[in-house]
């Protein structure tokens, strides 16, 4: 009743003591406890998750009180999976638990914001009577006006505006750009759709409808492992985390499971209670090392050497000595090891491996009339003859269906064949074959000679020598074979022989005995368990320039041990690899496939490498990366040149396509009698039409408008951050190097003056103010993950669950779906007058999983060099006309278009009709009002976010059992296998958005994925291939050890080899004045953090309190000693790419020679000026510059074919080196002065001069 009176009871106080008077029981007032009860009291609970770029996919309950989100709790009501498997839940980590802070934080974007100077200019033009598009033109075509807002990007100056006004400005900018330059000058960047797929689809749907360019991201931030498409033709397909629990031997290399896979890490520790051995490979004492039974502290970036040596041991002991039959059978059926390859003579005595032998090399084509050049060959040891087995890519795109499978049968006769692994003993000859060795201390590639057994073969082009991939592999791995080398003794201790355990010791620092022992254990375990040995990998191994070598060395090991596709075994890549499970339903939503058969897309890495002019500073030459015995038909080409060649051959997409406006080309093409494709091919041939990339710095070819949503391009993804600031944005920057080296280009027109400030308009859509917003011109407030309805999946678990609107979007924010819908409305209104209906020409590269992946089978024919007319769809891109109904973009955005019902749907090469589902969606979603003229015209509505969710759910095999059935039926027809049984038990299931709100659902097994979602097994990549004989989507149809494309062989990567970290020369390029100031050079590693997911949460007050709360770099004690740095001192990291400031964390955990800066600590918080540049310290990417790799540009070649986020150059950054030195506190400047007129003049001048 009264706190005071309750205390005043000295006369009645009842003392009951216990424990000999050490304790006493009171009858105090306990009302104070209610304060804590109130803290956790709430009005309602809504299920949602965090749409951050994280693979967690954790279901959370958000609690709302008085209309505000008060706290979030982990949901723990996932469906039960299998008996004897630990539960998946609770899922969620410290980061997700702190998210509600953001909703009401000072960073929250509450209103549509715009750069004040731009708004003034625009209002001024409008006030003079100009219409919006004219007003925008007036600003853009006056260099003074343009520079006034462009040059001050990043320096503040935002004001509030209204949605209507802002939408009008963006629409006007888009329309002006379409008219003046072409729609392919409008681009959009957003990452990982799986985390909030409707929000992703919002922007890409808008862009795809107007003809803009959604850019790939997975390759750009280097989480895409190119090795996966190279080996399996699959983007990334990995076991769910529960499958770790099925493993009996696990090696973890370069993925910090407890820190970055927090909700899944329990499986990693639980499996150890079953007796599973865990080996950790890491240069530093990382969190995951603590869980391990054994730690192999390799030198950073040398993992491949260790794994290759392990492969050496496995080949020697398990293939040659023990002849483990499980391994051999597996290799015969599921890998390309028995495939035959041609040997190319170098000189009189030496040979090098060339391409795969094909059916077309035989006079009778081995009975194969369709695509014989795309069918690879084995030697059948039963009939002692060359045979064309089923399953290679030629069978995939063939009129005769049913032979695309991995049954061990001859495709012509259907006879059982036993593919021979090695011809040793039966060979015609033993040849000297050379292999490249890149692991030399002087950095020069040398040739290593090995002996190999081979057969003579009469081919259509004369007598050739052939051998199997297996024989080639044994030779390259340096394994001794008695019949050739005269000894079968293992040569483990020969440190001069490539890939021996002793050789790796010199590179990795791991004692050879440990290497041998772990290899033996790993393989022995695989023999005993039929493949339950697993290697878990991630950013630590994949973010290097030669990431494909790192990974292929590992994949070779797990393939040799028959682990891929086996429960608890295989290759498990965990970095950025989220799986968008309901892909088939989502693709048409995201890329407007319901309205247009084709959409424009581009490769992120190429786009940024060229448009941010990083190519102008390239110090790495392509020639220095080559095989010394390469054919090298492009010798002397720069790395950027390879990209240009790849674009014109149709391998990589080009954005913009051409120097001309695609609307104009389309107009001309459709009036030409030759037909569109022929017209464009001729124009290219006669030089009237040129690729934009050939003069990338020309004003006509600049990107003009850029949308960034669900991402932090500038603050997180911008490898070469300072180059983005300089060339793309025209902002103040700290580029320190000189750009002359780009002059060496043979394909790109050189401009002495580099462009500064290419973008007319950058739009950031976000709920918090980060670096991208700071450099944007317009910031739109979006709903947080607690304020919108969306879908979320991950490959770490088999469930699909929703994001749910617990509260309405705060202040004036809107969900992404609604932001772009309203923008589409403004666009349509303005387009009525300015655009109307237009034809648009698309140049589409030779996409993977389409018949176009059969491009050039043998050799590379370059039409331009050879003076030929290009063949669209084979030697150059496909050209297609798309009709754009610009005044009706809004209607198209808001309803499901007619193409799905008429053309069907599909994914990854499978196809099925889906008219039934579309008519059901009419009832589920209702019709879009203005489209419903009559019953015939009625289209399902996409007005609300939930409508969009239901479209995805209803059209996808993973969430609609009937569609799954159709999908498996499609694959059954193609493979001749009976596969519909794989999802028959769930054929009647259909999920709707509200079902997911009640409980996350386990998705249905689908042909879009290579593993099963069954009650019997955990999801594991390749499971269906290995258990049901469906082929991999590769050239041979098998997992590939060997890649025979000419460019692969040119760069010495036909077989996996060891390639040390790249020498980037970035520190050497520093201006002398800066270099002279001392410091030491350290390898700059940027792994993922415990206190943030990329840049998100680093500025969250709760996480800042738990961590250092500002940028920091970890150093070893010895390096810190040498630099006289103690813990928490300021330090500067600098190279020619820029400079950054951080505080030191000095720790025994870190090995010497390495600096670890957890990415992505932004410069929006606690970052002072850097003494070297006099500008504010940057982010970790201020010290990086992207360097592209030509082998990633190969296209139109089965699995080596570009598709968005599938294959293409990756933006690696881990090879970076920085100069680190101490900065005294007295030198710290927080740079809080106002913008001076000197600086402004200088910045504006740079922008104006380049226009």
């Amino acid at each position, binding site marked *: 009743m009264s706190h005071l009176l*309750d205390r005043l009871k000295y006369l009645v106080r009842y003392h009951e003591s216990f424990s000999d008077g050490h*304790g006493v029981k*009171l009858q105090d007032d*306990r009302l104070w406890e209610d304060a804590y009860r109130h803290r956790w009291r709430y009005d309602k609970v809504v299920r949602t998750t965090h749409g951050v770029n994280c693979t967690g996919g954790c279901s959370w309950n958000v609690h709302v009180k008085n209309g505000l989100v008060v706290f979030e709790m982990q949901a723990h009501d996932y469906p039960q999976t299998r008996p004897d498997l630990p539960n998946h839940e609770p899922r969620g980590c410290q980061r997700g638990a702190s998210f509600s802070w953001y909703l009401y934080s000072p960073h929250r974007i509450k209103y549509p914001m715009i750069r004040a100077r731009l708004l003034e200019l625009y209002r001024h033009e409008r006030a003079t009577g100009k219409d919006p598009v004219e007003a925008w033109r007036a600003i853009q075509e006056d260099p003074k006006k343009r520079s006034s807002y462009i040059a001050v990007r990043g320096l503040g100056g935002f004001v509030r505006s209204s949605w209507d006004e802002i939408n009008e400005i963006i629409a006007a900018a888009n329309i002006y750009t379409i008219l003046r330059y072409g729609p392919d000058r409008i681009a959009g960047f957003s990452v990982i759709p799986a985390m909030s797929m409707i929000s992703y689809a919002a922007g890409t749907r808008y862009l795809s409808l107007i003809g803009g360019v959604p850019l790939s991201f997975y390759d750009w931030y280097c989480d895409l492992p190119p090795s996966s498409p190279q080996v399996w033709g699959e983007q990334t397909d990995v076991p769910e985390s529960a499958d770790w629990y099925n493993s009996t031997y696990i090696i973890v290399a370069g993925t910090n499971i407890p820190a970055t896979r927090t909700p899944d890490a329990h499986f990693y520790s639980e499996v150890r209670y079953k007796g599973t051995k865990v080996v950790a490979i890491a240069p530093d004492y990382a969190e995951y090392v603590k869980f391990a039974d054994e730690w192999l502290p390799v030198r950073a970036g040398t993992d491949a050497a260790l794994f290759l040596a392990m492969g050496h041991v496995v080949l020697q002991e398990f293939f040659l000595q023990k002849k483990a039959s499980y391994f051999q059978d597996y290799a015969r059926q599921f890998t390309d090891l028995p495939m035959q390859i041609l040997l190319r003579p170098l000189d009189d005595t030496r040979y090098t491996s060339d391409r795969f032998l094909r059916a077309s090399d035989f006079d009778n084509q081995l009975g194969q009339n369709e695509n014989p050049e795309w069918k690879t060959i084995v030697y059948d040891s039963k009939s002692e003859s060359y045979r064309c087995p089923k399953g290679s890519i030629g069978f995939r795109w063939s009129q005769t269906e049913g032979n695309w499978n991995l049954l061990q049968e001859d495709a012509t006769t259907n006879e059982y064949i036993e593919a021979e692994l090695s011809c040793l003993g039966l060979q015609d000859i033993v040849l000297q074959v050379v292999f490249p060795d890149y692991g030399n201390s002087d950095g020069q590639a040398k040739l290593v000679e090995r002996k190999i057994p081979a057969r003579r073969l009469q081919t259509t082009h004369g007598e050739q020598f052939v051998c199997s991939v297996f024989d080639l592999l044994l030779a390259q791995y340096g394994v001794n074979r008695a019949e050739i080398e005269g000894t079968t003794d293992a040569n483990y201790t020969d440190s001069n022989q490539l890939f021996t355990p002793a050789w790796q010791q010199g590179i990795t620092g791991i004692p050879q005995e440990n290497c041998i022992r772990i290899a033996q254990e790993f393989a022995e375990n695989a023999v005993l368990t039929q493949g339950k040995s697993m290697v878990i990998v991630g950013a630590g191994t994949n973010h290097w320039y030669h990431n494909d070598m790192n990974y292929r060395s590992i994949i070779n090991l797990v393939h040799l041990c028959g682990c891929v596709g086996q429960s608890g075994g295989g290759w498990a890549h965990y970095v950025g690899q989220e799986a968008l499970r309901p892909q088939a339903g989502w693709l048409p939503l995201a890329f407007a496939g319901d309205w247009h058969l084709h959409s424009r897309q581009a490769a992120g890495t190429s786009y940024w490498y060229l448009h941010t002019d990083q190519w102008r500073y390239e110090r790495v030459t392509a020639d220095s990366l080559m095989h010394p015995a390469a054919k090298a038909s492009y010798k002397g080409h720069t790395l950027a040149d390879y990209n240009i060649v790849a674009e014109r051959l149709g391998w990589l997409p080009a954005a913009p396509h051409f120097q001309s406006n695609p609307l104009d080309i389309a107009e001309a093409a459709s009036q030409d009698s030759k037909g569109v494709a022929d017209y464009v091919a001729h124009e290219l041939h006669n030089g009237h039409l040129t690729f934009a990339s050939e003069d990338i710095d020309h004003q006509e070819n600049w990107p003009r408008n850029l949308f960034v949503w669900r991402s932090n391009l500038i603050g997180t993804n911008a490898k070469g951050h300072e180059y983005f600031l300089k060339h793309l944005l025209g902002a103040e920057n700290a580029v320190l190097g000189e750009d002359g080296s780009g002059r060496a280009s043979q394909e790109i027109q050189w401009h002495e003056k580099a462009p500064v400030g290419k973008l007319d308009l950058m739009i950031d859509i976000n709920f918090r103010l980060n670096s991208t917003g700071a450099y944007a011109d317009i910031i739109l407030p979006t709903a947080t993950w607690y304020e919108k309805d969306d879908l979320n999946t991950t490959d770490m678990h088999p469930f699909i669950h929703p994001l749910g609107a617990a509260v309405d979007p705060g202040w004036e924010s809107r969900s992404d779906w609604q932001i772009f819908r309203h923008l589409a409305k403004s666009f349509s209104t303005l387009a009525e007058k300015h655009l109307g209906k237009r034809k648009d020409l698309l140049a589409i590269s030779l996409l993977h999983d389409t018949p176009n992946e059969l491009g050039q089978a043998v050799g590379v024919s370059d039409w331009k060099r050879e003076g030929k007319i290009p063949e669209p769809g084979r030697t150059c891109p496909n050209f297609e006309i798309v009709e754009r109904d610009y005044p009706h973009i809004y209607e198209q955005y808001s309803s499901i278009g007619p193409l799905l019902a008429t053309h069907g749907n599909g994914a990854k090469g499978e196809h099925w009709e889906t008219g039934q589902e579309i008519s059901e969606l009419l009832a589920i979603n209702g019709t879009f009002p203005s489209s419903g003229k009559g019953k015939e015209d009625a289209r399902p509505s996409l007005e609300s976010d939930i409508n969009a969710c239901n479209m995805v759910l209803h059209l996808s095999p993973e969430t609609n059992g009937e569609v799954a059935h159709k999908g498996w039926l499609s694959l059954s027809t193609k493979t001749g296998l009976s596969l519909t049984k794989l999802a028959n038990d769930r054929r009647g299931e259909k999920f709707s958005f509200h079902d997911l709100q009640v409980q996350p659902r386990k998705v249905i097994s689908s042909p879009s994925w290579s593993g099963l979602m069954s009650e019997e097994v955990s999801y594991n990549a390749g499971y269906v291939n290995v258990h049901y004989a469906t082929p991999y989507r590769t050239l041979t149809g098998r997992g590939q050890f060997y890649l025979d494309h000419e460019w692969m062989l040119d760069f010495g990567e036909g077989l996996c080899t060891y390639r040390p970290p790249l020498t980037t020369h970035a520190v050497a390029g520093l201006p002398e004045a800066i270099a002279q100031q001392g410091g030491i050079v350290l390898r700059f590693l940027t792994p993922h953090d415990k206190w943030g997911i990329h840049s998100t949460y680093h500025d969250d007050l709760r996480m800042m309190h738990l961590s250092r709360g500002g940028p920091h770099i970890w150093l070893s004690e010895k390096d810190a000693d040498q630099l006289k740095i103690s813990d928490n001192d300021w330090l500067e990291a600098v190279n020619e790419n820029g400079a950054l400031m951080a505080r030191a964390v000095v720790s025994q955990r870190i090995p010497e020679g390495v600096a670890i800066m957890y990415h992505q600590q932004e410069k929006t918080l606690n970052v002072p000026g850097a003494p070297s540049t006099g500008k504010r310290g940057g982010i970790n990417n201020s010290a990086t510059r992207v360097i592209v790799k030509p082998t990633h540009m190969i296209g139109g070649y089965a699995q080596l074919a570009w598709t968005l986020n599938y294959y293409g150059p990756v933006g690696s950054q881990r090879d970076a080196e920085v100069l680190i030195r101490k900065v005294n506190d007295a030198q710290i400047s927080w740079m809080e002065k106002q913008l001076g007129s000197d600086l402004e003049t200088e910045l504006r001048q740079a922008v104006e001069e380049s226009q």
Partner: protein
Amino acid sequence: MIWSWNTFLFGIYPYIAGTIFLLGSIIRYEREQAGWTSYSSQILASKRYMMWASNLWHIGILTLFLGHFTGFLTDILEWLGLDPVEHQWLAASAGITAGVVAMVGGVMLLLRRVLDPKVRYASRPMDIIILVWLLITLCFGLGTQFISVPEVIHDHVQNMEILIHYVRSIAEFQANPQLIINIPLIYKVHMFCGFTVFLLFPFSRLVHIWTAPLNYVVRPYQLVRSKIRSVV
């Protein structure tokens, strides 16, 4: 009683201050359980510095409080056989010592509160006001000794006796402000400041005095609370 400033300040004001002190404390205790705290900022400052500052301050100020209380309101010293002059000697010497100790501690606390940016940022206005006010009161208290000490040297203790009578008249609810009409001004200022401390008390962090955890000295190690009462 005839109205005069003297009557108001020393006849009425003490009761206003006392009423606010008591009622204010009760109301705050009833309404703001979660705000009933000393608002300690000890965590924000150097341990060494605070060890000196806080201890000097608390020891000094508690000694002064005890001294005033026994000296003015009890006859303990008389019972112990001290005559008024000896009483005054004791009061002056103990008072000056404790006063200086409290002054050193208090100034240290004030400097830290104002100059340390973290502490400054964490301070409520009242934290600074009350500390400054206590120091002012203390200054005047020490200032009275410039009169008291010369007097006691000459065995004059009249002022002290008047003040004892006056203070007791207040305590006995028979306020007689006329008694001190001729007392030197500095005593009056000191007393006014002192009464005002009571006035400010319930609005400040001083409330922690009410609930100083004295029972920690004697309580059992483990306390458990009964479930029976007040759990809703």
